[in-house]
């Protein structure tokens, strides 16, 4: 017993020493390390996680080569090359909090970009604040992040999910003003529940006499919707709202289209865009579809849009980028814009006109060291920057939450491909609550456009 115990004690001591020595070895490294957290396994990997990763890799590669269109033509961030550290978002919020700490302390990243799952965003944000590490949430939808708390180190470069639900209601009532009944089929977890709640709340304000027939909440990942489809058919609703995505959406379409569910019911797919190209033949014409923002087919023509499409297609075997890829682009470009703005400010401040004492030292310092986290944060707040999806304005959440408009359209099968036509756009203030107001309150009070 004693001998074994000695071995165990040595093993523990060794483990502790390794942990300690990690601290001692802090070194200066040249490239900027960005931790990127996205789903590499599980059902979210296919439609969201892996496209986001491919986009991140393509963008970093292109930025490092200085091939991005202006105003992002600088190599990397301000001339310093970028290095990507990708980790899997799987495992749940508890695991992700631990992994975030590891990313910041052991992998020594300068910034963290990531998080598709709302649960992970909510769990990681306070940790980012505690560790004082600039973190950009790039894809999660929950409005709760900046409605329930304020953060200095956390930014989100995309509008939250309230926008998707409200715009869906607005678009629906523009193309089908005579809606009398509506139903929903959403996955039974926060995203699905919030999406349905926001949509029905918006509908009850915009068209109070429209009635809810049934709200189906199948388990996330259920894959078999026979009974739900029967219930929806039986409900004879004018409209069916759904925030289903990925494989679940495909299964639902596969099972519902042959049963003619959509013969008399209009389908609204809030997150339908990522897999549209796979659903040709299983997507009835006239389905209202959104991309959670002006991404993909809704993105305005611009050199940035063409750039993203080109570099993404090269990485993704010819596939077009979908909305997670655009979200990733917004995050990296926003961070770059903030970094370079901060760096420029720092350089200007170090070369004051007419003063020559210490100018050389200050300039060298500014050129070599790069802007600090606080300086970048100051630049990032209330920043407006261009992305392949259009302009993003960090106007909400005390300058930390992006605001932008969105768009919806309807599907139409053209030459065997699913295209989106009849696109209508909605500006930010019509679909997002203003600063300081919660989404629920804003919708209930009539969704008045804020400042």
């Amino acid at each position: 017993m004693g001998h074994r115990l000695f071995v165990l004690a040595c093993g523990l001591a060794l483990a502790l020493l390794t942990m300690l020595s990690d601290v001692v070895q802090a070194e200066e490294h040249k490239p900027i390390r960005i931790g990127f957290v996205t789903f590499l396994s599980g059902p979210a990997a296919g439609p969201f996680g892996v496209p986001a990763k491919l986009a991140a890799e393509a963008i970093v590669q292109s930025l490092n080569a200085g091939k991005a269109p202006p105003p992002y033509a600088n190599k990397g961030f301000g001339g310093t090359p970028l290095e990507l550290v990708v980790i899997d978002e799987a495992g749940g919020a508890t695991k992700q909090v631990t992994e975030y700490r590891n990313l910041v302390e052991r992998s020594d990243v300068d910034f963290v970009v990531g998080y598709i799952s709302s649960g992970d965003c909510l769990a990681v944000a306070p940790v980012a604040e505690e560790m004082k590490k600039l973190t950009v949430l790039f894809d999660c939808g929950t409005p709760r992040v900046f409605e329930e708390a304020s953060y200095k180190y956390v930014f989100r470069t995309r509008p939250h999910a309230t926008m998707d639900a409200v715009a869906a209601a607005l678009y629906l009532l523009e193309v089908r003003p005579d809606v009398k009944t509506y139903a929903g089929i959403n996955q039974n977890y926060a995203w699905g529940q919030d999406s349905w709640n926001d949509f029905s709340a918006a509908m009850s304000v915009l068209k109070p006499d429209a009635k809810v027939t049934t709200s189906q909440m199948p388990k996330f990942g259920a894959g078999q919707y026979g009974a739900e489809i029967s219930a929806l058919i039986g409900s004879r609703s004018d409209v069916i709202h759904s925030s289903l995505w990925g494989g679940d959406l495909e299964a639902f379409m596969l099972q519902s289209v042959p049963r003619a569910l959509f013969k008399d019911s209009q389908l609204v797919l809030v997150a339908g865009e990522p897999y549209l190209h796979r659903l040709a033949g299983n997507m009835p014409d006239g389905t209202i579809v959104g991309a959670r923002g002006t991404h993909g087919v809704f993105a305005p023509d611009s050199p940035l849009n063409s750039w993203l499409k080109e570099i993404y297609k090269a990485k993704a075997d010819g596939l077009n980028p979908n909305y997670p890829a655009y979200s990733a682009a917004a995050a990296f470009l926003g961070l770059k814009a903030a970094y370079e703005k901060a760096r420029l400010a720092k350089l200007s401040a170090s070369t004051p006109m007419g003063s020559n004492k210490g100018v050389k030292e200050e300039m060298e310092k500014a050129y070599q060291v790069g802007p600090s986290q606080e300086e970048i944060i100051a630049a990032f707040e209330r920043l407006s920057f261009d992305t392949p999806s259009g302009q993003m304005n960090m106007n909400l959440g005390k300058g930390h939450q992006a605001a932008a408009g969105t768009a919806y359209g309807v599907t139409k099968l053209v030459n065997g491909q699913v295209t989106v036509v009849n696109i209508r756009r909605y500006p930010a203030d019509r679909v997002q609550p203003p600063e300081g107001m919660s989404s629920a309150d804003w919708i209930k009070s009539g969704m008045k456009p804020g400042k």
Partner: protein
Amino acid sequence: MSQLPAVVIDGILYASWMFIIAVGLTLIYGVMKILNVAHGSLYALGAYTAATFAGYWLGHGYPAFGSYGVLLIAALVVGLIAGPVIERGLLRFMYGREEIVLVLVTYALFLILEDFTKLLFGVDPILVGAPYALLGNLEMGSLIYPVYSLVLVVVSILVGVALALVLSGTRHGKMLRAVIHDREMSMAVGINVSRVYLVTFTAGAMLAALGGAITAPTTSVQPGIGAEVIVLAFAIVVVGGLGSLGGAALGALIVGLVRSAAVHYQPEVELFSVYVVMALVLIVRPKGLFAAPEARKI
């Protein structure tokens, strides 16, 4: 009220689907006393393989009706390869151990197979809906059901009946039942228990893969489908009484009908319905519905 026919039909459809998946699990448990957590992974492998094979078949323009045969072949292939490999290569070394250790072994196996499936087939879901849509729909008044789902009911009944016949009629089946009742006595009487185990596990694997293969055309085969069905399968097997074929059928029927009723009348409770049924059945019949009476061993 007019929803009642739909509730019943949906319940039966769901039950038949669950039965095919659960029956292999109850067979393996009954004979080998192993609660095979990897059953879900075999189901997933069967689904992925079937979707890939069927996609290949249809993509090359072969006759569409042949795709059904392709699905069955995929299930056979997965079962005949995975079954013996797992049983001979891994489980065989663990038979003397406690039941719970074997559950752990199958859980580790489940983890391994999850990534193995991902490496083999990628993270994108596979959608091969043609075999499902091919048979068209059956319209009964305002209710429309795909013929494929109704065929599934027939298939599950056939599987159940075939298994029952094999177990009661054939010599091999009787040996299996002997092993279920008392392994030591069976060995004493000269039954090659080791071979019985191999055959049983392979059969269970084939049934799991068959479940997956049949399901593949109706849904999008994506990562995680294995984990989804495991708990459902466990629930049905436990509700029915472990090792009982009739129990699995009745368990599946009860779960299917309750779930269907929930979806039609009170959708928010759908999430719990399976577990509530399981808890209620276990409270009333602690060893499941059709548990064999066991003599207490002192």
